[in-house]
Structures are given as structure tokens and as C-alpha cells.
């Protein structure tokens, strides 16, 4: 990325934790999404079988990623879809702009796409005199408020109905204040309908790209995705290069896992399969379809067998919906495009640990995310790996960008001392005795470092006068 984003995590976290309205909105929304998911996947055995399949499909796709991407390109090209490769977001933006300029287009309508967020496409287009209008309702809401998505599936989840009502009233001309959901929907629909007709180029994301047939699959609920990909004469699809699957028959199980995990839906209202531009004799559809395949660090992630599992993600957002940390922070506090558990493993790899490494520390390793992940990404293991890399200065070929940023003598020495004490029984015994004797003094000492953090909301633990080792010995429990 051209500009380096500096995120002040502690400040963001404090602000989010102190925002009562945000906390209430998130809690209510996450409870609903979680409940819907549980209702749909009510049979744990069936769910395990389904997600084992999803995992296998994604693993098979990633195993042969380079070949599948080539096959996808060949098939798409044969179908009349123009394929472009972009190593960086800047390149992807450049390709978009070139297409727009060729068509002298200044009005873009957009379906929801996280990759376009990764590219900061809207901002880039605006700088080049192009208006990019988000047409997904949630995206439209946050665009009105000059915000970024706070969730990868439900971008305006941090807002409640009242806040949206006020926003519409203030930002959309001649809009009376209403809190009735149907009326709010109607207001957005009216504005968007006109924009759909005026859009010169449609931009969308891609949920799955099928190498076998050269098909781009797009999952959505509002029909705006279909409008963006059929109404304007040109359609540009942007996709992270990991989204490819091998066969058409791989799609149904993944679709089922995606909609069920994301919103608890058996299937979404719309499911689009785009395999070519408008053919001769057809009455609608874009005359040109472009597919931009973005790498942006994914090849590097792919090269490491453990980290590669990050790329299995189908972007359902279930990990966020079930994360106790995300539920209390919301997406904006993370500061980058992808928040929550998946963001916490993906972002440090894309942006570098030196920038986003703190995300790997914002987890209690509770494992709620792994429990719901529809493709069994070992999120906790990858977070742990990122923590290791944060202290690892060695330049191994598979080292994560910005590794070793946290290395410091104090922490290294502390852990070395801890290890010595716990690896040598007599030192451990002396320590236990000392803690038992001196422990009662602890609360009277001034709070410093980690003790200070603990004491902000918790009384200090009390060390026992006699350790279990000592008690076991006294009770003559056998030592062998």
C-alpha cells in the first residue's frame, strides 16, 4: 500500500470500550446473528460433516492454487471475460482507472466487496474525479457517514436504527425523519434506483471463482449485486486470488456454509453466476466483463503451509459474530480493513507485524472463532505463530513481514528466568516458598507493569503459605 497506516490500538480500544451505545448495538446484533446461525446449523454432527467438506474443498483448491488460477484465466478468457493480474492494490486501482478512462466513465456503482476496501478503491477513484456509489444498503449507510465497514458481512452493524434514521434525515435531501424500517429501506431504494440507471461501470467482488467453468459467483441479498453486474455496460469484478475453487460442484457446499455461517440463511435471496459478457442476440448484461485478480501479499502467505490456512477463509464473518473481543470493540477499533479473528490473523500478514502485530495480542485464545469457522481455520494456532514471529528476529524465508518487532531484553530475560525456575525443581521449590512468604506483601507494594494492568479491575491473587508440593509431601503422597 502506498501510504502507511498508523493505528493507535490502545487508544482505539479504550475509545470503543467506553462507547456504551456501540457496545449495546454490537451485543444485540451479535446475539441475533449467533442465534440465527445456531438455528440453521442445529445438528452438530451434520455441521461437522459439512464443514469437513468445506475445509477439504478449500484445501484442495489451495494445494493447486497456481494451476487453478491459470485454468481460471484460460476459461474466463475463452468465455470473453478479460482477466487482469495485480500484485498490489495500487496496480489493481490503476487497472480499474484505465478501464474507466477507456469508457470515459465518471460514475461507478458498486456492489459490496472487501477486496475493493483493501484497495481503498473509492478513495482512489474520488481522487481521480470518479464518483463511486456503494449500493449495498449497509455500505450505502456508512458511505453517507464517511465511514468504513466495521464488519465484513454487515458493514453498518455498529449502527442501530435510530442512528440510521437520523443519518438519512440529515444527509439525504428532502427526507423526513422516520424510524420505520420499511420506510428507511424505501428511502434508500429510491435513491439507489436512480443511481443504478446512471451508473456507467459496475464494480463487484467475487465470492467464488470456478476454474473449471470460468464462472464468477456472487452472493447477495438485496439484488444490488445483480444490478451492478448487469445494468451498466461494463462490469469490473475484483477478487483476492485465493477465492478460486476447482470445480462447479465445489460451490454448493461452500455456499451453504457461507450463508449459514454469516446470517443463518439457508440460501441468500440472490446468487449470481457470471460466466461471460452479453452474447450476441442477448438483450441485457454488460458488454465487457473484467476480472482483476489481486495478490497483495497472498502469495507470500500461501508459501507457508501453516499460514496458508488463513487463505481458506470464505469471508462469512462468523468468527467476528462469536468473538468476545470483537463484540466489545466493533470493527473500527482494529483500524484496518479486516477486523475480528480473521482480521487478526490476516492483517498482520498483509500489513506487517510491525504495524498490525497488536491485533495478534487482542485475543484470549478462547477458541470461539475456531468452533464456528466453516472451513476449520486454526485461528488460535496462527495467532500463536504470529506472537512467536513478533519476537523472532531471524530472517527465515517464511518469516512474516515485520517480524521481531517486539523483541526486547526485559521480556526475553523474564521468560528465561521463568523457564529456569520451572525447569529446575529446586529453584521452583525455593520460589514457591518465597512467594508464600512474600505474597501477602504484594498488595501493599506500588502497582507497576503487569501488576498495574491486573489491579485495575481485579484483586491480586493470594499465594498460599504452603504449596501443593509441600502439602503433598506432608501428606505422604507418593513421589515417583
Amino acid at each position: 500500500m502506498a501510504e502507511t497506516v498508523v493505528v493507535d490500538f490502545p487508544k482505539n480500544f479504550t475509545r470503543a470500550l467506553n462507547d456504551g451505545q456501540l457496545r449495546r448495538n454490537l451485543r444485540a446484533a451479535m446475539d441475533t446473528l449467533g442465534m440465527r446461525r445456531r438455528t440453521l446449523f442445529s445438528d452438530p454432527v451434520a455441521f461437522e460433516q459439512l464443514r469437513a467438506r468445506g475445509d477439504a474443498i478449500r484445501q484442495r483448491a489451495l494445494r493447486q492454487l497456481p494451476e487453478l488460477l491459470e485454468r481460471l484465466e484460460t476459461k474466463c478468457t475463452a468465455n470473453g471475460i478479460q482477466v487482469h493480474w495485480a500484485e498490489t492494490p495500487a496496480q489493481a486501482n490503476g487497472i480499474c482507472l484505465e478501464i474507466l478512462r477507456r469508457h470515459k466513465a465518471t460514475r461507478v456503482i458498486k456492489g459490496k466487496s472487501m477486496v475493493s476496501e483493501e484497495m481503498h478503491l473509492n478513495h482512489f477513484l474520488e481522487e481521480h474525479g470518479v464518483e463511486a456509489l456503494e449500493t449495498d444498503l449497509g455500505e450505502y449507510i456508512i458511505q453517507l457517514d464517511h465511514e468504513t465497514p466495521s464488519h465484513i458481512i454487515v458493514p453498518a452493524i455498529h449502527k442501530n436504527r435510530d442512528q440510521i434514521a437520523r443519518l438519512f434525515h440529515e444527509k439525504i435531501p428532502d427526507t423526513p425523519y422516520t424510524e420505520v424500517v420499511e420506510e428507511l429501506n424505501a428511502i434508500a431504494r429510491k435513491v439507489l434506483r436512480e443511481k443504478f440507471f446512471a451508473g456507467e461501470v459496475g464494480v463487484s467482488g467475487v465470492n467464488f471463482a470456478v476454474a473449471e467453468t470460468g464462472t464468477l459467483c456472487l452472493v447477495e441479498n438485496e439484488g444490488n449485486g445483480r444490478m451492478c453486474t448487469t445494468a451498466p455496460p461494463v462490469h469490473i469484478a475484483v477478487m483476492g486470488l485465493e477465492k478460486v475453487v476447482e470445480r462447479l460442484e465445489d460451490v454448493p457446499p461452500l455456499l451453504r456454509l457461507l450463508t449459514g455461517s454469516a446470517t443463518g440463511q439457508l440460501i441468500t435471496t440472490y446468487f449470481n453466476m457470471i460466466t461471460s459478457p452479453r452474447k450476441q442476440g442477448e438483450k441485457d448484461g454488460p458488454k465487457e466483463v473484467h476480472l482483476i485478480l489481486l495478490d497483495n501479499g497472498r502469495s507470500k502467505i500461501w508459501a507457508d503451509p501453516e499460514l496458508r490456512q488463513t487463505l481458506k477463509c470464505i469471508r462469512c464473518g462468523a468468527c467476528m459474530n462469536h468473538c468476545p473481543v470483537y463484540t466489545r470493540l466493533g470493527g473500527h477499533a482494529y483500524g484496518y480493513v479486516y477486523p475480528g479473528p480473521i482480521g487478526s490473523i490476516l492483517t498482520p500478514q498483509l500489513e506487517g507485524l510491525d504495524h498490525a502485530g497488536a491485533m495478534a495480542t487482542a485475543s484470549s485464545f478462547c477458541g470461539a472463532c475456531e468452533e464456528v469457522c466453516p472451513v476449520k481455520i486454526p485461528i488460535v494456532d496462527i495467532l500463536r505463530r504470529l506472537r512467536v514471529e513478533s519476537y523472532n528476529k531471524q530472517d527465515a524465508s517464511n518469516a512474516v513481514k515485520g517480524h521481531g518487532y517486539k523483541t526486547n531484553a526485559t521480556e526475553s530475560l523474564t521468560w528465561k528466568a521463568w523457564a529456569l525456575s520451572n525447569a529446575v525443581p529446586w529453584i521452583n521449590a525455593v520460589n514457591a516458598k518465597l512467594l508464600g512468604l512474600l505474597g501477602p506483601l504484594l498488595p501493599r507494594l506500588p502497582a507497576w507493569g503487569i501488576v498495574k494492568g491486573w489491579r485495575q479491575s481485579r484483586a491480586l491473587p493470594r499465594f498460599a503459605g504452603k504449596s501443593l508440593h509441600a502439602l503433598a509431601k506432608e501428606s505422604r503422597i507418593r513421589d515417583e
Partner: protein
Amino acid sequence: MECTATMPDRPEKVYFFGTCLIDLCFPRAGMAGMELLQREGIQVIYPQQQSCCGQPAYNSGFPDEARQVARQQLKAFPQDYPVIVPSGSCGGMLKHHYPKLFADQPEAAEAQHLASRVFELTEFLVNVLGVELEDRGQPIKVTWHSSCSALREMRVIEYSKSLVRQLKNVEVIELQRERECCGFGGSFSVKQADLSSAMVADKVADIEQTGASLLLSGDCGCLMHIGGALEHRKIAIPVKHIAEFILERTRG
């Protein structure tokens, strides 16, 4: 993660891995755990050479230090006896993470061997020993906290709760968000103290609304965390490890 290991037939002897936290702060829970086993006619061995499972370093980004400590445990529990752990978290470390920690080390087979013998205490009491409890205590309302590792890694919560349910004078009032983490997470509780505090605040509120007069759990990490938060807020709900509770209620 597999559900449960193949259960052994009722063994003559078991090892007891006390965990460092119980060793230093909750030794009575450890003694209670061993007494519960002995009471069933099992000979308990407590190797004095044991210390910590290594999880603090393992989860903080210091695998070499974790291995150094873990090696000491491999040495301390060499025989083919089941290793009983009164904690889902430390049990999970020994059972699920040692094989990963030693995957490319000379001790890989030893680590596998230890992992295959690990049982969480309540799982062992219920599944292998089939304990039957007679409640001799006064009526009491308690609530139960499931540690994330007991719930998702060791998957033993149903065993733990089934023991409490055997106590006829004990009414268990469940938390509204039982499956939600209390925010301990080891170093997380101090490195992300604000987040951890926000999580435990919600947990404390959930505990209070049950009206229970005691909080039980199978993990002393969570108990130290939640207990500390209750004490900080001057809420008079004590916390207790399940082993200690069961022993007290059933002692003649």
C-alpha cells in the same frame, strides 16, 4: 481436536499433575483432587519434580522457553500411568499442544506418549471411575463457569456438571452466557488489561444476576481472574474449584 481419548480401564495408579497455579495459589484444590481419587481406591503419585505445563510462555510467543519447561514434565511423568489434571487449560496444553510443541524435536514420541495419557480430573472421575456422590451438605445455590479450554479443547464440561448435579442439595443456576470467555487468557489479562477487564465485568454481572452464593469452575486460572474481579468490586460471592467443593460436600 478429538472429543476424548480412549478411556483406560480402572487403573491401580495414576499420576497427578497439580498445575503451577494450584501449586502456588490454590493448593487445597489440588489436595482435594488427589483425595477424590484416593477415595476411589486409586493410588496417587505426585511427582515432586513437576512444575508448570509451559503454557504461559507457549501462548506468549516464547516456544523455546515453553519447551524447556515442558521437557521437565516429560521427565517427571515417565511411567505408563494416566496423568490426571485438575484443569482444562493445563490438561489441554499437555494433551493437545505438547505433540505440536515437540513435533520436530527428539522428544516427539515421548510427548505423544504423555499426551495420550492425559485426563482432566472430572472426566476421569466420571468416565473411568464412575464415581457416585452422596451430598451431606446444606442446601446451596451455586453457579458454574465453563473455562474455554475445558469447553472447547478438552470438551469435559458435561462431566464436570454431571458431578455437581449428583449433589442433591445443590441447585445449579446457569449463567446466561456460559460459553463466553471470562477474559483471563493468561498474559492477555495483563497485556490487554482494558479488554480483559471489560470481559470480566460482563461475567461478574452475569454471575450476580444468578443470585448464587458460590461460583464453581474446573479451572483455577478463571477462578483467580473472576474471583479477583468479584473481590475488587467487593461482591461477596466466593469462588471454588469443583474438586474442593465436591470433597467438602461428600466428606463423612
